[in-house]
């Protein structure tokens, strides 16, 4: 609760600060707020406070909130001049990001369907707007509209699902629903099943899992890169946590029912994400497709529910988040220099700025899942997770997809190291360097010594 209040208050403070043209104060203010929120999160460890039966700050929620807050801090660090170049309404953007973050904290900790719904909508509505803040940019417009229309459409399904669940159980409370499932295990109301499926559809849409992924590449590509970074890392993590909370917890008794369709979704997601990413010539769009495939890997944790599922997700999400942040940070830098985000813009980057190139290399290796990076540990945990029920075919399929993944992740490394590019200076501002260094360190530490995060939850 403290976390949400802190974030929202920060958001409002920023909004007012913007009103009073205190531009310089915006970022520090935001960071202070976020750090405070992070501190609240960390100190709330193991307290397990329940708010009004609507929210529960259990360790799961705290771990994920810490992760997303940290991710958001990193993204804010990257905002230096990013918005200011295009608009004077920086404060509003900050506010919207913070609002979205507060929505995410809600969906990490909800214990009631209404909270899930409200949280998702706060997050989504903010994002619809953020996707379109480049008002003159057609791509941004298009991203915004696509996201909005499809998001609203999918919300309909989510709501229909919630309604059906409500009809079956007579309650929105996750506890009550779970109790209902356990006590009526043999005679669950037939309304429940389609309800569950429709909720799955709604959440899969937010995750960008196929075949509900279609918005992802377009929106990711069209949105401003920083917002894309936000969406593909923090938002995805939060969405996944929400998914996990519901299906890994409340709906777990019906695992046998919803697992097969989920498995199908995993298969399609992996396949579409990886295969389509292969042919991309645009780095940003490639990252979008790769984020689809990562959603597929993340869903592994739900294919087999074990005691470690949620922890595996947090490891994977952390690995993915920080690697992606590096990728987007470099993307922004390169785009500012060369004006393009195709692979060819990265040609010869290793010569222009070896450090940035190295960071991006580590990020790519992590995304590809090479050992000694966090990405490998994440993938390994996911594989291990589904292997406990011997879904060997799934892992084998995932491996084939991972191979495709290697191919396209290496493409950018190839461009940076092995191709000649124009001799342009590329200097990373201090904040970028900070983010890159921290992210690289996190990626490597998690890869070499993941024990720190393994038994968190």
């Amino acid at each position: 609760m403290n976390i949400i209040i802190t974030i929202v208050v920060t958001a409002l403070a920023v909004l007012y600060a913007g009103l009073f043209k205190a531009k310089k104060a915006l970022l520090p203010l935001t960071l202070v707020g976020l750090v405070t929120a992070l501190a609240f999160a960390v100190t709330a460890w193991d307290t397990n406070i329940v708010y009004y039966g609507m929210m529960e700050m259990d360790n799961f929620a705290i771990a994920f909130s810490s992760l997303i807050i940290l991710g958001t801090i990193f993204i804010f660090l990257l905002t230096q001049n990013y918005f200011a170049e295009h608009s004077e309404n920086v404060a509003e953007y900050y506010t919207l990001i913070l609002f979205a973050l507060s929505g995410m904290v809600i969906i990490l900790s909800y214990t009631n369907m209404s909270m899930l719904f409200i949280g998702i909508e706060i997050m989504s509505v903010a994002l619809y707007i953020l996707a379109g803040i480049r008002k003159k940019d057609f791509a941004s417009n298009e991203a915004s509209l696509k996201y909005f229309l499809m998001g609203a459409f999918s919300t309909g399904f989510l709501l229909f699902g919630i309604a059906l669940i409500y009809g079956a159980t007579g309650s929105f409370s996750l506890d009550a629903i779970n109790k209902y499932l356990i006590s009526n295990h043999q005679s669950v109301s037939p309304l429940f099943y389609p309800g569950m499926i429709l909720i799955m559809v709604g959440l899969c849409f937010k995750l960008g899992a196929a075949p509900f992924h279609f918005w992802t590449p377009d929106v990711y590509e069209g949105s401003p890169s920083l917002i894309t970074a936000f969406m593909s890392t923090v938002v995805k993590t939060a969405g996944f946590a929400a998914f996990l909370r519901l299906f890994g917890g409340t709906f777990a008794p019906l695992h046998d029912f919803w697992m097969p369709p989920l498995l199908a979704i995993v298969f399609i997601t992996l396949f579409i994400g990886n295969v389509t990413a292969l042919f991309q010539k645009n780095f940003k769009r490639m990252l979008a497709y790769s984020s689809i495939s990562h959603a597929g890997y993340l869903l592994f944790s739900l294919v087999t529910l074990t005691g470690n599922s949620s922890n595996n997700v947090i490891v994977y999400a952390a690995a993915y988040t920080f690697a992606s942040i590096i990728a987007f940070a470099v993307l922004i830098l390169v785009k500012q220099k060369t004006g393009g985000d195709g692979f060819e813009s990265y040609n010869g980057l290793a010569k222009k700025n070896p450090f940035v190139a190295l960071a991006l290399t580590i990020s790519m290796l992590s995304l590809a899942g090479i050992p000694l990076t966090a990405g490998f540990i994440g993938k390994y945990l996911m594989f291990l997770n589904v292997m406990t029920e011997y879904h060997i075919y799934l892992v084998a399929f995932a491996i084939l997809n991972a191979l495709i993944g290697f191919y396209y992740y290496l493409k950018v490394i190839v461009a940076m190291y092995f191709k000649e590019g124009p001799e342009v200076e590329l200097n990373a501002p201090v904040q970028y360097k900070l983010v890159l260094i921290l992210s690289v360190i996190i990626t490597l530490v998690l890869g070499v010594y993941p024990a720190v995060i393994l038994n968190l939850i």
Partner: protein
Amino acid sequence: MINLVWLVPLIPLLGFVINGLGRNTLSKSLIGFIGSGVIFISFLISVSIFLALGNDPVKSHEIFLFDWISAGTLQVPLSFLVDPLSSIMLLIITGIGFLIHIYSIGYMHDDAGFGKFFSYLNLFIFFMLLLVLGSNYLVMFIGWEGVGLCSYLLIGFWYTNSSYATAAKKAFVMNRIGDLGFLIAIFMIFTTFGSIEYAKVFPQVAELMPGDSTLALIALLLFIAACGKSAQIPLFTWLPDAMAGPTPVSALIHAATMVTAGIYMIARSHILFDLAPVVQHLIAIIGLATAVLGALVALTQTDIKKVLAYSTVSQLGYMFLGLGVGAYTGSFFHVITHAFFKALLFLCAGSVIHAMHHEQDMRHMGGLRKKLPVTFATMLIGTIAIAGLPPFSGFFSKDEILAHVYEHNQFMWGIAVFTAFLTAFYMFRMLFLTFYGTYRGTHHAEEKIHESPSSMTIPLIILAVLSAVGGIIGIPEVLGGHHWLAGWLSPVIPAHGSALSHVTEYMLMAVSVVGVIVAIAYAFVKYVKQSDLPVADQGKRSALANLSYHKFYIDEVYDLLVRRPLDALSRFFYKVVDTKIVDGIVNGLGWSTSEASKGIRLLQSGNIGFYIFMMVAGIISLLLYTYLSL
């Protein structure tokens, strides 16, 4: 003394190292001194070992040096076996080797690669000694391949001439074909008898029944190995080509020592062969065929060394024939005498070539006997010896083989004795063409012809003496001797007396002697009296002569049947199978993935309506699942 046998190969090895490292820095005389000196020391040690062995009641000594290879039950020590067989081989190798080293000092004097040459020769002696001294098949195999290597190095000694280099390669590869047989035989011996030590294998072999199939296979494989090394059909074509090397090399390696390794090996394992009659029979046939083939080809060759080379092939065939009919002692006897006279002949030929400034074509020689008196005299002795006229050495050894052949199969004897006539004919043809008649080269060249230096002629004389009297070590009882060699070898190879009556033996000798004299006479008539013939030789030949001249086109046949198909197969494997199929599948997987990517990404059409439609389709399927699963 016998325990010091390891010094025998080690000293030449030292010579190799010193000469090899100092080849550019040491003076030629020093190199020559070291090169021959080490062999001489080895020779002295060999002699003392030989004498010691003669006085020793124990005729077989195994000298263990160190464990070489061991894996599981396979234990291969590097150890030497000194027994009558190997001790006599030591004498031949070091003795003849020494003479040839001395000879080389003169022969190679002007060659830039003098030091290299001596180091190679020393290395060769080392490996050859290893071959005969080894107390197990693997040590023999080291020597076996080692001499092959030296043969390679020495054939290709003048490597800038690429046809020489090719000849060297050919020799090595053909030997390798045999070597594979040897290797597999070793594996079979190891798995069958649990060891490859002679001392452990042979007693076990002796307990087996004749005709044992494993044994036959082992014998066959060993024989294949011998075919390669000793230039038997079908692996003989490398030997004539090997004449590309300097002549002392031909004398040492390709006449006196290395090529007889096959005979040594079979004699060494005769127990095996005795129990494999089928293989023995095969050996006899192959040996006979090789003898005939070699002789036929030698009839028409014009290169002096080629004649000798084919003669060597033919003589080796003789030895195999002997082995095939069980005349191990006889064959070994022939090895010894052949070593004397063939080394002599080659060295004489070398002397001629040296005098003629590397002219090897007999059509450009003639009438040299006055200019090269020593060479002529020694070569005459050698030729008589090989032709098999008594009392020269060749007579006794050849006769012993022929007698056994007669005992074995009279038809084969007929062919063998006919081959002996051919031998006499072509050898004297060579002699007459070279030394008789008038000089056929240019006048300018004629003036430069001179007798070789004494470092070359002295070995010739020594060898000539040996060729002449070498036969005394094996005078058969029928001629009043008691065949010392057979007695000496009896601990290794049990002597078995001839079943032939003395009358028959006399008759056989008479037939061969008379035939040989007739053949010589015919050659004399043909090449000395009708002295225009060498010129006519350049004209049209009869079909048969043509076949002989072109060595029965065997090289061409091999080229057509083996080399080209393999090369074609190689190209096919590379260009079609590897690139198109195996790699094609791998690349095809990549390609199809990227094509799939190209296709699937089109789903991302950018059209919201389509996206939503796909979503709805997904939802419908999921609901359908729900409907069906309830």
